């Protein structure tokens, strides 16, 4: 009796303890209910009064440790409805959560935040669905241009896709396409990006508080994921616009087991120009020129087993400008012909394998390659009859720049205990650069001479390991400490980098949030750019023995809170840079023949700081946001501006973007965007002055004195002409371009047909045709009003006044 009493007593005491200790793991994937595609960074919660939560990884996998018994499982994802289900778990459970996508604009949030609906300004998620109703440029939706409406992110120049993030330069943004870096994201000299939104599933943007799993770029990570394809049914879309046309198809390869996605986009300027050329060309007089761009995206994936899945992603895109001519005169047996072309593009591919070891450990292994090339060529040849002989002469020059890299990486997600997700992994990248290879070939009847400059490639490698822990405590505290080690090798020169990362804060449930972060990052490659336009002539170069990797440190402090149907967020940041490079004074990518290392200034430092504000409304018929950024960005190089600090060319004091979308009816959406920014800095000539050189002839002075008695103006003009004038520019970037502002509006008419959905979009870019500055030019008109003005003939050139557009698209 006593034994039974004691046994019962101990059982009653130990039962709660035993119950508390009995945790089970719920793991699995979160999927789109209609297509079967995995949802990345979807939120998954379990519990009633106390929520335990996590987010899915880059392949839709999650793992949660919950108490045994009845629990409420919830999941949510931006652009999708909410999932909620009460389940009973008696042991470790693997399941799939399927969520339906939202359909109408009324239900779609414009900006997504990750994870846990945190109101971070440092991180965003954009999907094509979110931007489908934003105003366009010439009818072309572009995800990258849409990012420029967010705080802290702006374009380098009017209508271009180069991004300037928190005072950094365009090369400091890491663009990943299915985990593969892409070096030049610009089509059409920067007016379009290479990302065809029909092929894109999501874009995650990180500009502060960088997790340790990312490295190699100082200012931002733009992680673009391609669609995987519907696992259950075939679908597609097509569109025709003023600039390009697109076609996308996706569907199951094996229903429920494998899917494909292919997407193509092409322009037709070359077709427009070739028709009149074809009509006017003759046998003896031919002219032809044209410009074309295209993108091809492809992806295929197979679910090999419940624990294994493989993916193959491919991309190829090109821009080509070419012109040719032929002049032939039969009477004198003369022939002149020539070609001129400029071509650039990217090719990349990656093979990935996902493996789930158990309900706590997930792994993604990836092998990837990428290639960026730029080729510029010019050739001409002549033949002319000289009596019985034919004289021939030929000239051919080519300039090319190539970047290749091969990447191998393994990333692990480990869920050791509740509220912890440990990520760790390693990455190896092999680089090959050929920056600025020049070849020249001269040929005549009897001789041939060729010259090759800068042909030797630069080979280097980068080795990284990292570990981080994403901690989400029930009391609202979240932390993400991490560490990344990087070794960059260039020849026998090693550059080590230890990169601590931290972000953390406190979130009141459903209410305000405070976050602080710190990052230290090393970047081993640089982009030399004269203009900041995102021109294909921008040169990617590696760190070498003479040129160390660039580095940055960034701290940020942010706050966010819901305000009724609005949400408000603000964040301040401070960044420092070192080991920056830039073109030396007087240098230009147009000047060929020199090694690029001799045209640059090294050892530059920089600083950028500012405040970002975002007020957004995600619900109701009227949605949108207001973004404001106040910022400074400065640079300092020994050989520039006399070694003094100067404003960076992308420094802009105030930057405002207002975006609104209104659903007039279920099938009519009106949207508008207004942007304002204070002018970019610019260096302008202030005056001229004569130069001297040694030895000057003594009679220079005698002559000028002699002349002066005859004609004063003749004297000074002639003296200046003989000796030359120098231009005084004053301080670098001392002046400001005029303020930039622009209104874009568009209206979309959607109709559901029997077998497809069609959309007509009408738009107006720069609706009130404000003459925004593109670049500065000078007039040398010395007569009339200009001769009298003290500010001599400086003029603003505008690229894009008002531009209407129309596009037609279908989804089936």
């Amino acid at each position: 009796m006593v034994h039974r009493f004691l046994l019962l007593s101990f059982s009653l005491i130990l039962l709660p303890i035993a119950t508390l200790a009995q945790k089970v793991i719920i793991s699995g994937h979160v999927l789109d209910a209609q297509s079967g595609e995995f949802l990345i960074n979807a939120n998954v919660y379990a519990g009633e009064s106390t929520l335990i939560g996590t987010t899915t990884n880059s392949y839709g996998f999650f793992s949660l440790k919950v108490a045994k018994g009845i629990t409420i499982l919830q999941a949510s994802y931006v652009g999708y409805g909410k999932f909620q289900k009460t389940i009973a778990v008696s042991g470790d459970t693997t399941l799939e959560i399927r969520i339906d996508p939202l359909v109408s604009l009324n239900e779609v949030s414009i900006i997504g935040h990750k994870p846990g609906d945190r109101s971070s300004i440092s991180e965003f998620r954009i999907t094509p669905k979110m931007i489908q109703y934003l105003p366009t440029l010439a009818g072309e939706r572009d995800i990258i241009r849409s990012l420029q409406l967010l705080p802290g992110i702006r374009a380098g120049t009017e209508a271009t896709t180069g991004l300037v993030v928190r005072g950094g330069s365009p090369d400091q943004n890491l663009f990943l396409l299915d985990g593969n870096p892409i070096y030049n994201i610009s089509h059409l000299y920067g007016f379009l990006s290479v990302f065809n939104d029909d092929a894109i599933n999501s874009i995650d943007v990180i500009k502060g508080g960088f997790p340790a799993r990312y490295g190699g770029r100082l200012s931002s990570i733009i992680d673009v994921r391609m669609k995987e394809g519907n696992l259950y049914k075939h679908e597609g879309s097509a569109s025709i616009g003023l600039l390009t046309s697109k076609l996308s198809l996706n569907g199951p390869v094996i229903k429920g087991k494998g899917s494909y996605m292919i997407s193509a986009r092409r322009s037709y300027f070359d077709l427009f120009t070739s028709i009149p050329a074809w009509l006017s060309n003759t046998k003896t007089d031919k002219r032809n020129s044209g410009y074309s761009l295209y993108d091809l995206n492809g992806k295929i994936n197979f679910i090999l087993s419940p624990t294994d899945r493989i993916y193959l992603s491919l991309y190829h895109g090109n821009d080509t400008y070419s012109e040719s001519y032929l002049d032939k005169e039969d009477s004198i047996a003369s022939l002149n012909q020539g070609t001129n072309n400029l071509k650039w593009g990217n090719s990349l591919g990656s093979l990935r394998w996902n493996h789930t070891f158990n309900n706590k450990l997930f792994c993604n292994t990836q092998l990837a390659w990428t290639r960026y090339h730029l080729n510029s060529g010019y050739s001409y040849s002549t033949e002319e009859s000289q009596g019985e002989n034919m004289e021939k002469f030929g000239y051919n020059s080519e300039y090319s720049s190539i970047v290749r890299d091969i990447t191998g990486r393994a990333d692990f997600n480990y869920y050791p205990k509740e509220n912890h997700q440990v990520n760790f992994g390693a990455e190896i990248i092999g680089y090959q650069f050929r920056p600025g290879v020049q070849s020249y070939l001269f040929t005549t009847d009897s001789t041939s001479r060729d010259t090759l400059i800068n042909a030797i490639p630069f080979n280097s490698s980068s080795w990284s390991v990292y570990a981080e822990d994403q901690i989400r405590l029930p009391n609202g505290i979240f932390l993400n400490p991490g560490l990344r080690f990087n070794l960059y090798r260039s020849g026998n020169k090693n550059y080590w980098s230890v990169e601590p990362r931290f972000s953390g804060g406190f979130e009141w449930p459903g209410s305000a949030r405070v976050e602080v972060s710190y990052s230290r990052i090393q970047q081993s490659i640089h982009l030399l750019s004269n203009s900041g336009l995102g021109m294909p002539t921008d040169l990617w170069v590696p760190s070498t023995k003479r040129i160390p990797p660039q580095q940055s440190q960034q701290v940020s402090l942010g706050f966010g809170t819901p305000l009724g149907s609005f949400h408000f967020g603000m964040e301040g940041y401070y960044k420092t840079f070192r080991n920056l490079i830039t073109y030396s004074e007087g240098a230009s990518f147009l000047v060929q023949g020199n090694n690029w290392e001799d045209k640059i200034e090294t050892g530059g430092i920089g600083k950028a700081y500012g405040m970002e504000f975002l007020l957004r409304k995600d619900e109701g018929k009227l949605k949108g946001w207001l973004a404001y950024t106040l910022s400074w960005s400065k640079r300092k190089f020994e050989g520039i501006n006399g070694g003094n600090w100067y404003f960076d060319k992308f420094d802009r004091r105030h930057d405002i973007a207002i975006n609104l979308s209104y659903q007039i009816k279920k099938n009519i959406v009106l949207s508008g965007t207004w942007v304002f920014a204070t002018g970019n800095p610019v260096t302008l000539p202030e005056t001229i002055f004569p130069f001297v050189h040694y030895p000057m002839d003594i009679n220079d002075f005698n002559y000028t004195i002699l002349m002066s008695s005859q004609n004063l103006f003749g004297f000074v003009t002639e003296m200046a002409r003989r000796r030359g004038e120098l231009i005084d520019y004053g301080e670098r970037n001392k002046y400001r371009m005029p303020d930039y502002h622009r209104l874009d509006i568009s209206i979309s008419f959607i109709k559901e047909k029997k077998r497809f959905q069609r959309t007509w979009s009408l738009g107006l870019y720069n609706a009130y045709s404000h003459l925004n500055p593109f670049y500065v030019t000078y007039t040398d008109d010395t007569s009339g009003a200009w001769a009298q003005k003290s500010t001599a003939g400086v003029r603003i050139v505008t690229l894009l006044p008002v531009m209407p557009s129309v596009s037609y698209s279908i989804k089936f």
Partner: protein
Amino acid sequence: MKLYWAILFLLVCNSCRSDYDFGIDTNPKPIVNCLFHPDSIWRIEITRSPASLWKYHFAPIEGATVRISLNSQNPLLLDQFVSKDLGFYTSSAENVPSAPFETVRLEVITEENTVTATSYIPPKPLFSKEILDLIATKREHRPKNGRFDWDIEGKIHLKIDTRKNGHVWYSIVVRYRSNMIYGSPGRIYSNDPDTTIFDYLRLDIPYPDAFKTLRKTDGYCIDLSAYDPEMDELILNVQGDVDNLPGDLDFIVLTVASITEEYLMYNKKVIAQYVAGQDLFSEPVSVYSNIKGGLGIFSGINSVTDTIRFH
């Protein structure tokens, strides 16, 4: 539809360029240029910059007070600069006594500003030379006018000794005696055979990157510290086409000058700006100036000129 395209076309054509006042600071700045040599009279140019980029009028500043101080001693007084014509202030003394490396301070006081600059006299260059295959070929001028054209080509082997004085910045030019005076409305030729007008021959020093190669038509400025100190021998490729000389071309002159680092930096930027030219995409070049409160260059020079005769 046609009306739509017509309107669009007109909008595009009419909205491309616009005037904008950047508020550029065009207040005239004092310009002071002076390259002073211990073996010749000093001449300082003092002018003002124009108020417009397209007015090539450098207004001379008259009545400025000019002071020269050596080694921070009491300044040489104004009466050293007795000629003040049209912006050129010329000393009367044949030699301004200055030892090498002596600090020379300039102060120019005008009604609007005071500008200052500091420099020094570098040591005289020590060098030896050897002439290799230097030939001048004579041709009759076309159209015939009794004058001659000359083609000059050859090499000069130059060895500069930097070990004794440690000085590493030099300027090298090769010139011929010319009789052509540039003038308006047309060229003017001097018939005086003893004219001391000299013009430049093309000079090329085919060395790799260690040399900062500058304006090849006017000579070279060189920083010898930029490369192997054991290799201080230079091969100068000389080339020139001289037209319309009344007499024979008997000789050319080689001038090797020790210059200051400031003058080297000034020349570097001058040539960078010249090369950048009208390239829309080139980075703007700020010309170096050691004139505090103004623009220009104030620098000491010390040179040796050798005559090279053709046989």
